[in-house]
Every structure is written in C-alpha cells, then in structure tokens.
C-alpha cells in the first residue's frame, strides 16, 4: 500500500518543527554560546563622529590594563594590506579607519583581552584625536556642487555619486505619457530601516598554526560566500578555511555582508594564536551593519480615463552610506527595483536610478526582501492608489482593470522580467470578500458623518523571488545556484545537507518533508544539516526568499537521483527489468503485480549489501540546481484603519492577507512566515525607522530609540490562500518568507491616506507617526520625512 504522505510528514503536512526541540529547552547553539579553550575576547571602538580626520590614536593606556592582549588600529591593518576589504557591490570598505572616519559608528580600533569586560575597559582607554569635517546626511547634500568628497580614498572619484543607472524603454514611455489623459505624480521617501535580528552579529576566529587551518564560527546567512571572501581578502587558501554558521538568532538580510568585526577577529586570532570571540552589542549592530531601504522616489503614471495605465516613469535617489556595500546581484545597481509593476499589464516603463555616498553606515541589504523589491512594490502600490484617487476611480476597480489576466501567462513585465503564473484577480476578490469591501465603504461614509476617520488600503503585488537563474544573477561573479547532498544510510535513514542556511525558516523540518515527498522516507528519519562549509555543498545561502525556490528545488532533484538508482536496485531485487518497475510513495512494485514490491528502505539496505553486478555501492548523491526563472508569488493585502483626528494615532481594525506562494510544503510554517512578515510591514508603516540628525548622529542607535512593535501593538492577521503552482519548480513551490514585508506596508499606508481623503493629503512618508498624521490633518499638506530630524 502506498504511504499516507501527510502521516510521514511529506508535502502539505503541518509538521511540528524539529529544531524547536532544542530551542524550547534553551539548548540552541548560537555563536555566543560557543566557547573554545583559551578563547580571548574582542571589543570594537567606534567613531563618535560622522565625518572626521583621524589625527592620532593613542593606545598606551589600553595596553596598561592587565588582561589586555592586543590593540589593533587601522595602521596595523594597513601594514598587512587589510585596512580595506571588498564589498559585495565591487566597492571597498574600511576594516579599521586609517585616514578618516566616514560614518558614526565606524570601526576605529579594537581591543583583544582575556575577558569581554576588560576588552571594553581597553576601548574606553584609547584616546583618538579627531578633526571634524562637515557631514553629509542625505542625497541632496551629497549631490550639491560644493559637497565635501566622502570617498577621497578612491582614485577617480571626484563627487559623491556611486552610479547613474537606467532601465526600460525611454522613448516608448515618453510617447505613452504624451498620449495620456492624466499624469499622476507622487514623490516619497522609503526611510532607512534596520533588519535588527534580536541576535546581533559576532564571530569566533580560531586559527590553528599547527594545521594552518582557520575555523570561524560566524553569524552568517551565506557561509560559502564568506569563505570565498575571506580567502580572497586574507589570502588564506580556501580549503584551509572553515566557516561554521551555527544557529542564527534571525537574519533578515542583516547577516549577509562581510563585516569588519569578522575580519578583525580573524587577524587577531592569527596574530595571537588563540581563538578570538567578537560579539557585537546592539548599538554596534544598529549603527554599523547592513541597513535596508533609504530611497527617494519621484514616480509618474500615464493613465487613460477608463483606468488603463499606459506607462510608468520612476526616478530613484538612493542613499548608500559611506561604502557601496549593497548585497545584491552584480548586474543591477538598485537591486530589482525594476520588478515594480510586474503584476500589472502596462506597455512601457522607464526607470532612472542614482545612488550616492553619505556619511551614514553602509549596507543597502535586502532586508527581508529580494533586493529592493520592498521599495519597488511600496512605490508601485502608493503610485497606484494616488492614480486611482486622481482619476476618481475606486482603488479595487482600478487594480482590476490593470492586473494581468490568468490566461496572459507567460507575460513580460513592464521592465522585461518574465512572470509565469498566477490568479491575481481571484486573490484580489478573495481579499475584498473577506474584508467586506462594499460594506466597509458604507461604514466609512457613516463614520465620517459622525467625525470618525476610517480608511481602507489595498496592496496587490507579485515579486521576483529565488535568484538565479545564473545567466542573470551573480554576486561578485559567483553564479546564484544552490545545492543539496543526500546520503541514505543502509537502514533507510538519511542525512541531507544543503548550501542554504536556515535562520528561523525551519529548513531542518521542511527539507525533510521534500525528501519524504520524493522518496517516501518518513521525514523523522531524515536529519538536515546546514551552515558548515567543510561538510555542506557549495551554495549561495539564504536571503531574498531563495531557499525554497533554489535549494529546495535541489533537494527535490537530488532525491529523484536517489530514486532513480533505487529503482535499478529494486529491479534487481524483484528480478525484473527496470521498465517493469512502478513507483508509489515509498515503494517500487512490479507492473501488474502490485503486491510484489520492495520499499525504499529495502533498496537502501541492498545498496550496501546486495547491489547488482556492475553498480557502484552506496546510496548518495548531490544536485546543483540552477532555476530556469525566478518564482513569482502573488499577494493581496487589505488593511482597514481608524485614525484619531485628535491625536493622529491610527489603529489597525483588520488586516486580511491572501497569499499565493504556490504549493505549500508546510502550511504551518508558511503562515508563520506570513505573520512575521506582516508584523515587519506594520512596523515600517507605523514606527520603525533609522534616521540621523544634521550632524550625522544616528537617531535610533538602540532599542530605546529604534522602535520595534511588541505583542501589545501588533494587530491580529487574517490569512487566506490561493495555490497556483510554480510551473518550473520541481514541486510547484514559490518563495514566501518576504512577501508580507514587501507588500504589506503599502496596505497600511494606503489605508491611512484613504482615511484622510478629502483633506488634500496625498502622501505622508513612513513611518506614519502620530505627529506626522496629525500635522497632515491640521494643514492638509503632504508630510515629508526627508529633512533630517533635529534632536535638540
């Protein structure tokens, strides 16, 4: 009898998570939990100023403290050619500052001591003499003719512009705009935010001189990329480097880049011949590591009176901080911003993008998104709502007119991506029905008559998840495929390793479910390992929702290779030819004789004890998977809110989410991902942003100033699903971890703007803080988050 797939924890089972068994007992193994014999501790001294020349650094008082082993400065790094390191975007970044500091929080020195407390004492004893320079805190200042040059270290860099980039059809777009009945224009800022996993970054470098091997425990979402980077920067042969990414306390894109602290701990370990542990404090994490967003948009839609969008024009100015360290595919300068409007049928589009240096921390990481798609979809949905309002058309109807129809796939997006599947209108309709769209609109009018402000906001979007294919997507030239390696033991139990790296997504649970689906081996019989470059196959890691689309596909493919070999073994055991063998979940049988069969476990045993002549023994294989396309999940998020006109405070009444991520491997985990994403969306709309005062001081350098929502503020979410399998993925799955973060913010903001309809307010920049909403209500003006916040 075929197995019951749900019972063995296969595809579609809401299997309880394997990794939870250790986490709920406090037995997780995060980097800070790792203790090596003789381990020393490193602390980093950071710049208090955003832009300043370093005149001198006096470390003598630090050395005088008992227990301080070494103080490293930029000069020491420079002597070893390690003062600068490459970024993931073909720029350079200072490991320790030599000439000047370029943002507040930049690494200036580090102290290695017997104990973290002594290392901190050491940092406090270092005296640095700075000569302040004028700081630049936004793109307008950066592009001013007389702006001070931030990157005077770079030959040929004579201004603060990093790139000027364009994509799309300029002429076609211009023509469409000339023919439009209406041009709807809106400008806005997607503020800088920080992914802020609760666990900050850290590393333990352990260089063993006797073997020449460097082992580094590291908070990284992409251990193999790090190994390659360390090999290139530190000139250590790649096989002598072992990166171990143990349990990660969240990542959200923050743990993709190479950080100076990692490099310093490695050099310190080599010089001191002892393991060196660096655990970043929260302030260090917030002010120096990879941020997200910080993009200014000017957007225009050319619209016909019947609601049809004819063309899109977008210009973005993005603030990348002092070093261009975006973690993104090399080919695209502003990530996948040009995936905007992918769910709409729009003939032409053109995007220009300019990126600049400022005296702010570097990063531009894909914060819970697939390389700037969060900005893309937010801008898209805000532009769509503004255009619907300008046209006087219902926002749901306006979307319905322009959404790509089910039978139009495959379909080129306005900027040239290829979408392949979806049921967009169905998702929208489910969302509208669930929220009770027409009833709410009536309710809103009635409430308005009594002085209450209700609003409803919609966000519909599809986003490109799961880079590559490798033709188009690479990081520093490394193609974006991924991998899996499966070893089935003789008793039919198995170990699976992949090139991805879980950080809360539950790979240890879900990858086993894919194997169970392909082979009929119960999920509980499969152990999953990731994150150790000495044992895991090469992969690009986990970010941009690429695990399921790429590594997950590799898990399917390697399982199928195993099944193909097992089939030959089955034929041998059953004494028939291969062609007479049929497969059902977990079992091969002779065609026409269903009761004559062998299980996958029988085949595993035979692979080690009774292989046919000429077959190599064992039952293991690997697969490298290069996806033919990105996956395109679709989502419709609808929020209803009430704005208090007396205070500007707004409450979420309801949030309905309709997600189509194709086939769901583990529905429980998928829903968990959606709810987590919606919370970050709510956070960005409501409270969460990193800003700077005019002196370049980071306002949001700790959790007392950087507001994150708690269980108290976070609204409840109502989830719905549609399943349109991905046509090219082996099990029909699409990415999901980031959809809600990407599509969610616009639903909340659109709802608040809808509540303010009639006041003349078209835009309030995120986060929609009560004072911003209140001011908008009082003045009827748009509220820009653009000027730096004055702190005094």
């Amino acid at each position, binding site marked *: 009898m075929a197995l019951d797939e749900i019972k063995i924890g296969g595809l579609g089972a809401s299997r309880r998570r394997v990794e*939870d068994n250790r986490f709920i*007992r*406090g037995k997780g193994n995060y980097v800070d939990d790792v203790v090596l014999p003789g381990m020393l501790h490193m602390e980093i001294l950071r710049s208090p100023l955003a832009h300043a020349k370093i005149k001198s650094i006096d470390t003598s008082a630090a050395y005088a403290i008992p227990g301080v082993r070494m103080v490293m400065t930029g000069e020491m790094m420079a002597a070893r050619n390690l003062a600068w390191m490459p970024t993931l975007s073909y720029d350079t970044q200072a490991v320790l500052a030599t000439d000047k500091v370029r943002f507040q929080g930049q690494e200036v020195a580090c102290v290695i001591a017997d104990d973290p407390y002594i290392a901190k004492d050491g940092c406090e004893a270092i005296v640095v003499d700075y000569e302040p320079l004028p700081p630049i805190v936004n793109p307008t200042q950066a592009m001013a003719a007389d702006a001070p040059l931030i990157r005077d270290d770079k030959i040929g860099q004579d201004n603060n512009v990093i790139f000027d980039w364009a994509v799309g059809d300029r002429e076609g777009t211009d023509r469409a705009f000339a023919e439009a009945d209406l041009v709807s224009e809106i400008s806005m800022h997607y503020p800088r935010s920080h992914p802020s996993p*609760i666990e900050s970054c850290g590393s333990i470098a352990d260089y063993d001189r006797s073997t020449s091997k460097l082992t580094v425990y590291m908070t990284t979402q992409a251990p193999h990329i790090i190994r390659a980077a360390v090999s290139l920067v530190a000139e250590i042969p790649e096989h002598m480097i072992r990166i171990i990414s143990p349990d990660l306390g969240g*990542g959200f894109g923050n743990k993709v880049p190479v950080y100076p602290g990692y490099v310093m701990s490695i050099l310190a370990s080599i010089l001191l011949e002892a393991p060196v542990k660096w655990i970043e404090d929260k302030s260090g994490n917030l002010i120096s590591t990879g941020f997200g967003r910080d993009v200014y948009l000017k957007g225009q839609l050319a619209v016909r009176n019947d609601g049809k969008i004819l063309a899109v024009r977008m210009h973005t100015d993005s603030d990348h901080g002092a070093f261009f360290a975006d973690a993104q595919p090399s080919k695209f300068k502003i990530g996948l911003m040009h995936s905007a409007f992918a769910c709409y049928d729009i003939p032409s589009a053109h995007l220009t993008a300019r990126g600049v240096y400022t005296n702010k921390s570097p990063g531009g990481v894909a914060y819970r998104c697939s390389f700037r798609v969060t900005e893309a979809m937010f801008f898209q949905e805000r532009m769509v709502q503004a255009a619907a309002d300008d046209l006087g058309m219902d926002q749901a109807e306006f979307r319905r007119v322009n959404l790509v129809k089910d039978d139009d796939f495959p379909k080129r997006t306005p900027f040239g991506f290829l979408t392949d599947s979806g049921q967009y209108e169905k998702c929208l309709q489910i969302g509208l029905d669930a929220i009770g769209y027409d009833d709410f609109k009536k309710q809103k009018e009635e409430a308005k008559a009594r002085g209450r402000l209700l609003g409803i906001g919609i966000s519909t979007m599809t986003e490109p998840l799961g880079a590559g294919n490798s033709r188009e997507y690479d990081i520093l030239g490394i193609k974006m495929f991924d991998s899996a390696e499966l070893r089935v033991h003789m008793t039919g139990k198995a170990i699976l390793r992949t090139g991805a790296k879980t950080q809360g997504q539950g790979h240890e649970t879900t990858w086993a479910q894919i194997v169970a689906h392909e082979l009929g081996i119960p999920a509980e019989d499969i152990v999953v390992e990731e994150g150790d470059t000495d044992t895991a196959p090469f992969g690009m890691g986990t970010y941009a929702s690429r695990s399921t689309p790429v590594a997950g596909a590799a898990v399917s493919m390697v399982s199928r290779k195993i099944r193909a070999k097992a089939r030959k073994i089955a034929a041998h055991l059953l004494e028939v030819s291969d062609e007479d063998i049929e497969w059902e979940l977990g079992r091969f049988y002779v065609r026409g004789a269903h009761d004559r069969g062998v299980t996958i476990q029988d085949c595993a045993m035979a692979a080690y004890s009774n292989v046919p002549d000429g077959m190599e023994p064992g039952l293991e294989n690997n697969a490298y998977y290069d996806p033919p396309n990105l996956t395109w999940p679709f989502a419709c998020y609808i929020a209803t809110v009430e704005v208090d006109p007396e205070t500007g405070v707004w409450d979420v009444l309801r949030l309905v989410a309709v997600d189509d991520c194709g086939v769901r491997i583990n529905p429980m985990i998928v829903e968990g991902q959606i709810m987590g994403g919606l919370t970050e969306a709510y956070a960005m709309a409501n409270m969460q942003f990193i800003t700077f005062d005019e002196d370049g001081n980071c306002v949001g350098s700790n959790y007392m100033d950087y507001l*994150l929502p708690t*269980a108290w503020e976070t609204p409840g979410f109502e989830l719905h699903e549609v399943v349109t399998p991905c046509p090219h993925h082996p099990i029909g799955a699409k990415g999901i971890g980031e959809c809600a973060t990407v599509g969610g913010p616009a639903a909340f903001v659109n709802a608040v703007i809808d509540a303010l309809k009639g006041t003349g307010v078209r835009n309030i920049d995120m986060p929609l803080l009560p004072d911003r909403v209140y001011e908008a209500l009082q003045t009827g003006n748009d509220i820009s988050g653009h000027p730096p916040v004055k702190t005094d």
Partner: protein
Amino acid sequence: MSNEPKRRWPDMTLFEEVAPSGAPSDIPTTRVELRVNGETRAAQIEPRLLLAHLIRNGFKLTGTHTGCDTTNCGACTVLYDGQPVKSCTMFAVQANGHDVTTVEGLASSEQLHPIQEGFKDEHGLQCGFCTPGMMLSAVALLNENLNPTEDEVRWALSGNLCRCTGYQNIVKAVLWAAEKMRGDA
C-alpha cells in the same frame, strides 16, 4: 575550567571562596550564593558582573540570551523569586541569596513544561532566540493567572521582542499552555 591554560579571569570564579591568584588587587571581588533552577550555586565575582553573564558564562546556562543590553528585548528574561526580570541589566550581586529560574529549569528530564509544549505545538517560535525569555515571561503570567485573556497575554509579553513570528502564534502558545495547565490543575 581545570584543563584551560592558566590565565587572568577576574570577573568570576565558581565554587571558590577566594579571588583567583592572578586577579589584580585593585578589583575587589565578592562571593555570591544563589539558587539557580533549584540548585545552590556560588561564585566569586566582580561587583560589576551582570546577572546574564554570570548565568551564561559562569553557570554555562546559555539558554538565557543577551539581545539588546538595554532592557528592551527581553531575550535575557529569567524569573527572579518568581518574577520576570531582565538579567542583562541586573548585577549578579543583586541576586545574592535569591532564587533564579532560567529556561533550563522549566522542564524536568522526562516532562516538558506546558509552555514549552505550547510554543512547539502552536509554532510560537522561528529562530528561537527570543523564545526562552518569552516563555519565562509567559510562565510568570500563568503562575498568577491560569485563565488570561488574549489582551492579558499580550500585555504580559510586551517586554519581550520577537522579530520572526509576529506574536500571533506566541499568544496562541500561551493560551494553549494555560488551557493545559488548567486541565492539569
């Protein structure tokens, strides 16, 4: 500790009555004795040592995590005489003579605490980093109120941050545990 090379380790010495020989005389140390998960533990420590660090580095109970260092995230929450406190902003000397429960003290060797079962069953965790603190805040609530409303649960957890789950399943996990504990009572 005995296999490690001899080195200066002034912030704490466990189970010793005197300061370690290498400690400089200008840093005074003091002896503390506290009950951790029902067991009496003693240590000779610097007064500035934080409770979280004594628990993690001294007693090797690494289920207590440090997230933010500023009493905001709650990953370091432990029960202090039954009340939830954030151990990253409490000096270890303050715990002298007191009772501390960490996540490792929730389960017996055979039996999980209902809150642990609830978190697993309701998918109340993803990366697991905030989970120990979150569970201890929840246990403090349930020890006083076995029949909390959703709002009471949300309020009780409002000192603990989670970046993965969106809280909805955490709230469900606590209500799950409350129901189970009512049944057991």
